């Protein structure tokens, strides 16, 4: 078992660093979908995720809090200030001295303006802002930061990715590295690259985050899902971002 893990780890470690164009064997979940679902993602007039993007744009310009500030007050036009931002998250937060994902970054900013706001979760407003900001990275390559302080956390994320969990005793790597391209029941198993989050998932009939999707996967193997916003989940997101480095951001993606 340990030898198998080492082999897997070795295989993953041989992936070259830096941005690779597609053609290195990595494929987005987009490639595994049917034509009509692909069409839904490619056309902004068909993509239900755009409903949340529209709301995000409104929220970006809405004044809140005692000081009556909107996101735009400090950050101006999101198309300029937020360009390529989502593509480099999770990132290291020097104040907190740990990695944070985009949700936590947006949440922290919002809490500064509205101190009573609860920690960010899957509520409509938060998802809408994530979708709107994520859209500003669409088409750009995922660019996880080279910051050395992220290294330990990323390694922990990788270790979790390769660890067997749950009653079914499956690791992420088992399905998404070893068996990608094959089928689980009737559904194709994608490689599991987090390029399009938050996604409009047809199964949810709504928009949801990467954390929601990861927790659903853990339920799927009958494991206790990692807690929302937990450091372990952020570390896993951090590893996934590195694993998908160089692939195009597709936010808001549509997925089955």
């Amino acid at each position: 078992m340990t030898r198998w893990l080492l082999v897997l780890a070795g295989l993953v470690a041989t992936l070259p660093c830096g941005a690779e164009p597609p053609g290195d064997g990595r494929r987005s979940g987009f490639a595994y979908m049917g034509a009509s679902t692909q069409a839904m993602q490619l056309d902004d007039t068909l993509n239900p995720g755009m409903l949340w993007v529209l709301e995000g744009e409104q929220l970006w310009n809405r004044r809140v809090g005692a000081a009556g500030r909107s996101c735009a007050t400090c950050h101006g036009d999101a198309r300029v200030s937020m360009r390529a931002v989502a593509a480099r998250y999770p990132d290291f937060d020097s104040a907190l001295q740990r990695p944070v994902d985009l949700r936590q970054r947006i949440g922290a900013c919002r809490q500064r303006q509205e101190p009573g706001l609860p920690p960010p979760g899957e509520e409509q407003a938060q998802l809408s802002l994530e979708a709107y900001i994520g859209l500003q990275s669409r088409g750009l390559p995922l660019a996880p930061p080279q910051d050395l302080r992220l290294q330990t956390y990323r390694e922990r994320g990788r270790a979790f990715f390769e660890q067997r969990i749950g009653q079914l005793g499956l690791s992420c790597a088992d399905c998404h590295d070893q068996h990608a391209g094959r089928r689980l029941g009737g559904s194709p198993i994608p490689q599991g690259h987090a390029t399009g989050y938050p996604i409009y998932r047809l199964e949810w009939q709504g928009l949801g985050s990467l954390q929601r999707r990861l927790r659903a996967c853990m339920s799927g193997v009958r494991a206790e899902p990692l807690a929302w916003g937990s450091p372990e989940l952020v570390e896993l997101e951090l590893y996934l971002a590195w694993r998908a480095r160089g692939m195009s951001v597709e936010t808001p993606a549509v997925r089955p």
Partner: protein
Amino acid sequence: MKRRLLLAAAAGAPIVLQLRPAQATPEALAAAIHSFTGGTPLREGKVRIEVATLVDNGNTVPVSVSVPGAAPAEVAAIALFNERNPQSDVARFHFGALAGLRTVSTRIRLATSQQLVAVARLADGSCWAQRVDVVVTLAACIE
């Protein structure tokens, strides 16, 4: 099923189970079609359904219906029915004076693999139908 509920409850995940009450019977489907056609017998043809044969997810299935076998002005209404959902009706499209081409699209829910029936009611009272079989599988990794 119970263990999964316990696990999910322990994890604090909201659980919503898909209820499958008495499935739509062939009689229910016939009754729904009858309420649209007024009893006019169905003829096969003129109508075209576009839908994936194997859907990505049964919760959201894009479907298009057109009537290439008739001029737009001839088509008064199009209705879509299903065979195995709890309810046979999916949607009914009634065209007005300023309707253009008789092609309609929507996204539907299919509880399981089943047949879709599209019926066009023409201005001359005739009713035409097209049937397609669609395969629906359960998604992996649902909450």
